[in-house]
């Protein structure tokens, strides 16, 4: 089962604006390991090698915060919680 199919099972109320922000895209160029692309269970962060930047798929975010911990060398991810009632909404949990 692909990750996309798993995420299709989950219930989200997607807001119109991202609650995740890369503070300084320049810093990602200096980051070798791109740990944010590794630790997220839903793969929010992807490295775009053509554009040379991190693409943030915030619509799939499950709001756990591991990305901020993974990026603690550069402290380059800004996360706030989505607006009340928006974002992931578990049915089982």
């Amino acid at each position, binding site marked *: 089962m692909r990750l996309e199919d798993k995420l299709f099972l989950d219930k989200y109320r997607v807001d119109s604006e991202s609650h995740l922000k890369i503070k300084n895209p320049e810093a990602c160029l200096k980051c070798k390991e791109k740990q944010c692309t590794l630790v997220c*269970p839903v793969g929010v962060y992807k490295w775009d090698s053509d554009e040379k930047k991190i693409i943030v798929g915030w619509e799939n975010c499950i709001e756990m915060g591991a990305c901020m911990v993974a990026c603690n060398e550069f402290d380059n991810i800004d996360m706030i919680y989505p607006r*009340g009632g928006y974002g992931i909404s578990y049915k089982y949990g």
Partner: protein
Amino acid sequence: MSDKFDVIIVGAGPAGSAAALTLARAGLSVVVFERGAFPGAKNMFGGVLYTPILNKLIPKFWEEAPIERHIVKRRFSLLSSKSEAAFEFRCEDYNEKPPFNQSFSALRARFDPWFSKKAEEAGAMVIPETVVDDLIVKNGRVCGVKARREGGEVLADVVIAADGVNSFLAKKAGLRKDFSRAVLAVAAKEVISLPREVIEDRFSLEGQEGMAMEFFGDSVAGMVGGGFIYTNQETLSVGIACSIKSFIDKKVAPNDLLDRFKAHPSIKRLIKKGETLEYSGHMIPEGGFERVPQVYTDGLLLVGDAAHLVNASFYHEGTNLAMASGLYAAEAIIEAKEKDDFSAQTLKRYQKKLNNSFVMKDLKKYRAVEKWSHENLKFFEEYPGIALEMLKDYFSISEVPKETIQKEAYRKVRTHISPIQAFLELNKFRKTFF
């Protein structure tokens, strides 16, 4: 909404609701802000709810609480790519009458709303769909919160931060300790549907009996953590949890690790023909005793995950500690209310209650677990394979005399580890975990 409450609680998880229930019963005015569409909407856990505190707060909770199965069997197993060695414990005393062994499998999006409702019925005001972004601080004292809504500045004598592992409020109050990759784990889980009879046959259970299974070694590719299966009524909770550091060191993503776990021959047969209903993830504060911050300041208390209260030994206890902390925080506030003094000096009573309870005593007992885990990677990476290889040799049947087989098996083990080293390392393991 009234201008000022006795207490504002941020987060309607087990810690927040336990506090709200206790405070409302004592007649204090309480408002609970929950950012999810409903309490529990943002919450997930592995799957076992320990209930001594719940039973104290709501006697006979099992008659109405949305819980799944009572745990009568626990199983710990060690996997290599092809072998499995397991220890299983089942006891009929755990099966006699409620609350059994105070351990129930549960699903949080079902349990948390019920528990929050109990607080509401006792008189707490629960307001969902409301994010709290900041604290209101006056003269160095927390005296309210800023909610992200119109007229969102709400005042109170005390604020309880029950806002989970990320606790932005604890951070803003300067109470959060080191938040490094080694002390935080990431869990990913699938809720997998199977007919009730299949679950009961496959796991050898009857009626409402349930089972908790944990898997180490190759279950998580030798990473610091483990895999789990918990039986619910008509679903299984199947997942993995490992430290953020190990995901980074091994360059494995949580979902890939979960898929790998599900594909292991020992796991595959247990979830066969199951249909995944939901995929979820969460961060777990596993740093233990050393990482618990000061849990009080003027006008503010930290409870549950926000206070880093998780026992990450073999017990994997979080929600029970959360409820205990919510209860003790509420008791300290009730005493403070009587004195009409909400200074750190008075609220310190909460820290004392916590320290004198099983919560901090247990965390203290297992204080070395996190450090041990990251300093003894061989126990996750190498030793499970060696132990299982030895067992395989031992049990393999051939024409070779047993004595020769066994000597050869021990000789192979000794190429990896000397008897003295094995003794010393196992002794350290015993001291850390038992």
